[in-house]
């Protein structure tokens, strides 16, 4: 497996921050799904997710338009997750066309799903990027500053909501 990547993601303090939430609460999940649906609608994207990026996998805690094995697994291997790049960057991350982008052209997730463009903003707490709120589209797409602002607003809603589910 990708030891270097997993070591970068598996920083003990960051994992402890994620572990401080009750991420399995049904009401939380329903509310996060609603935020994802809202962002997908506003940005006219077929897929939107709220996820935590763990040490070896992306864990989807809210979603719209996710299906197949990704929905069954509730996530993806971290090395395939576009949100991993958002978390490592610690700032909004954009891909116009993954099939033409050397950073992503070989990504099996994009090849399997047919998705091509991505915009994600980090979910941040305690100086750590814990996860991301994102939209993914099946067409090449240049996201605008307005798009980023809409998604950032969604991410802010996610973090406010999560605070109510803090357990440590």
């Amino acid at each position: 497996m990708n030891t270097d990547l997993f070591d970068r993601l598996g920083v003990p303090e960051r994992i402890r921050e994620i572990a401080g939430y009750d991420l399995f609460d049904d009401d939380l999940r329903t509310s996060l799904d609603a935020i994802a649906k809202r962002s997908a609608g506003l940005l006219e994207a077929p897929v939107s997710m709220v996820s935590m990026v763990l040490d070896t996998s992306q864990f989807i805690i809210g979603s719209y338009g996710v299906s197949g094995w990704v929905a069954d697994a509730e996530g993806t291997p971290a090395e395939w997750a576009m949100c991993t790049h958002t978390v490592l960057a610690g700032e909004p991350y954009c891909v116009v066309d993954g099939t033409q982008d050397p950073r992503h052209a070989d990504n099996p997730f994009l090849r399997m799903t047919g998705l091509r463009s991505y915009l994600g903003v980090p979910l941040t707490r305690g100086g750590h990027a814990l996860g991301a709120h994102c939209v993914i589209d099946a067409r090449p797409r240049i996201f605008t500053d307005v798009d980023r602002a809409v998604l950032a607003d969604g991410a802010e809603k996610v973090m406010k909501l999560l605070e109510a589910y803090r357990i440590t």
Partner: protein
Amino acid sequence: MTSAPYGLSRPDLDDARAAVLRVHAGDGPRVWNDLLHTAGLTGKEPGGLDRMLVVMHGADPSTRLCALALKIRITAHTELTATHSIL
């Protein structure tokens, strides 16, 4: 680990150990030994991951997240392997 479609391998007990050592840093070896003891494993069992994941799920919150991350990889591996076998 075993080979799989798209280069995704099914995690094994060594991957669980690496995850525990990673997220617990200096305390990792003690935590891992406690998990092995609880699971009744030596750490050498080729098929010991399933039993270890049960124990990890009931452990401290960081260890539980490691188990969750490994389960996601197992499900992805299982479903993609099945898809490939059909195709």
